[in-house]
């Protein structure tokens, strides 16, 4: 078990190094505002992708309603800071709790469904959330919720991203995580092992939704604005693409997937119409050559890096 603690320390250390490095580069303006925006966007997308991976990748419940929970987080946190004048941290907690609560309420009936049916149900539910927001004048309706303070900065985004990854990693590597994975692998066998599949599906859905809400809170407090059109099903597909690209059931895969897609679309900022084409082509190529995603269901580890190195040597020799 010492190894587990050691790995945690390595993770904290790497996180701190990356944070300090990026922070220093931003402070000295070597990283300009455009890339700064994209780095923060990458952090938010990592939160969304890793939390969706908990539902889709680890528990095997195909949900495409993540944008709905993100919207709840975005709006609830905005209500907290704008209308109630509460501090950002309270707004973030409220966003998490509200989205998780809704995830629980929605999860209980919908998780009786499976596969395509669940996907359609979650898609529909996220649209219902969006349409409800669209028709609520209290939060600005169709013109969006305006005047949200710009509270999300790099330390907040990176810190919460790191926390999300750490907590979800811990869930996955515990007995509860093993139960989630068992449900994905074979629901009947999991039940036969004494695992309450319905409970664990709901648990994953609730936690995943909560973190999506957290991502939403960071999102609305970065762009001064929460608008229903930011939370359409295209947003859900974006997140899903990141998860599938990185590998269902791999946390490091989701991080890589989110970073790649954010920077691909940043690089294509001048040709927005190309973005969706590149997305589609990327996914098609991936499905043909590596259907399990870049990392499959493995985590990026010393061993994997070691294998790459060894493979390189062998190729050199040949």
């Amino acid at each position, binding site marked *: *078990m010492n190894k587990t603690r050691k790995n945690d320390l390595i993770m904290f250390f790497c996180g701190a190094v990356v944070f300090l490095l990026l922070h220093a580069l931003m402070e000295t303006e070597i990283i300009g505002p455009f890339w700064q925006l994209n780095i923060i966007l990458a952090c938010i997308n990592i939160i969304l992708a890793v939390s969706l991976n908990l539902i889709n990748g680890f528990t095997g419940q195909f949900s495409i309603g993540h944008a709905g929970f993100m919207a709840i987080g975005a709006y609830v946190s905005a209500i907290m800071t704008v209308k109630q004048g509460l501090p950002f941290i309270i707004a973030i907690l409220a966003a998490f709790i509200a989205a998780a609560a809704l995830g629980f309420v929605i999860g209980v009936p919908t998780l009786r469904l499976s596969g395509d049916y669940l996907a359609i149900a979650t898609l529909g539910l996220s649209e219902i959330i969006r349409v409800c927001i669209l028709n609520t004048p209290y939060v600005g309706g169709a013109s969006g919720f305006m005047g949200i303070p710009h509270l999300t900065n790099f330390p907040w985004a990176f810190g919460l991203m790191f926390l999300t990854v750490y907590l979800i990693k811990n869930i996955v590597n*515990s*007995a*509860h*995580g093993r139960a989630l994975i068992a449900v994905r692998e*074979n629901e009947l066998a999991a039940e036969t*092992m*004494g695992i309450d*599949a319905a409970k664990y599906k709901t648990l994953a859905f609730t936690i995943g939704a909560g973190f999506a809400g957290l991502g939403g809170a960071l999102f609305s407090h970065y762009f001064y604005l929460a608008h229903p059109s930011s939370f359409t099903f295209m947003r859900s597909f974006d997140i899903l693409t990141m998860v599938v690209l990185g590998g269902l059931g791999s946390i490091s895969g989701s991080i890589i997937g989110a970073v790649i897609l954010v920077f691909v679309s940043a690089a294509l900022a001048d040709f927005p119409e190309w973005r969706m084409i590149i997305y589609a082509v990327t996914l098609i190529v991936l499905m043909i050559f590596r259907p399990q995603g870049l990392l499959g269901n493995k985590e990026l580890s010393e061993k994997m890096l070691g294998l790459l190195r060894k493979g390189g040597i062998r190729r050199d020799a040949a």
Partner: protein
Amino acid sequence: MLLKTDALSIKFGGLTALDDLNLKIHSGELVGLIGPNGAGKTTVFNLLTGVYSPSGGNIFLSGKSLKGLKPFQVTQSGIARTFQNIRLFSELSVLDNVKIAHNYHLSCSLAESVLRAGRYFPEEEDVERESAKLLEIFNLKDKMHETAKNLPYGEQRRLEIARALATRPSLLLLDEPAAGMNPQETNDLTKMIRWIRGEFALTVLLIEHDMRLVMDLCERIYVLEYGITIAQGAPEKIRRDPRVIEAYLGEEVPDAPH
């Protein structure tokens, strides 16, 4: 009496798949359930484990009714099973397969797991140790980090039994444990089942087509045909029962099945 079914029956639409089944299994017994294909043997297992809910009758485990319990609750009350078509967590390691079966005995809360505090580390260590011990008994310890689907067929069967035992059952249901095994493997399996029964203080109910194994191993046998119990009793008696011979070999065949 460990397990008792009381006029258990199930109908699928108009078809009565199982009718008036009265099993009585005492603690520590090794009981066989045989019958031609489609007789309803696996249906009995599915009823006992809560996968199907019976149309009539009731099931009692140590006097407590299991009616209406979900499969995971049945497991938690002490029945473990294996499947005719192996259902391992095939993408996971051999060790993880067994670890998952320990799960419901653990008391570590979600918060403790997330924060890696309190009972998290001690319990993880316990589970790891217990699982490794179990795998050692089943001769799978040197393969514990392999992916389950990469094991040879016989070892997958062994792993499934090991995993079932990790739930610490009082009654073990084995659905055709010798299916697809060669005579040598079947012999080993017979020995193993006998041994685990003593070692883990188990009661075993098994479905099997391999008559040699059933006659050799079981102390009592129930015979099903078209969902109806046509005979029950000691292997010697079953071997000579004219209705059983008829069910297996058709009419007017004088010899018993071997």
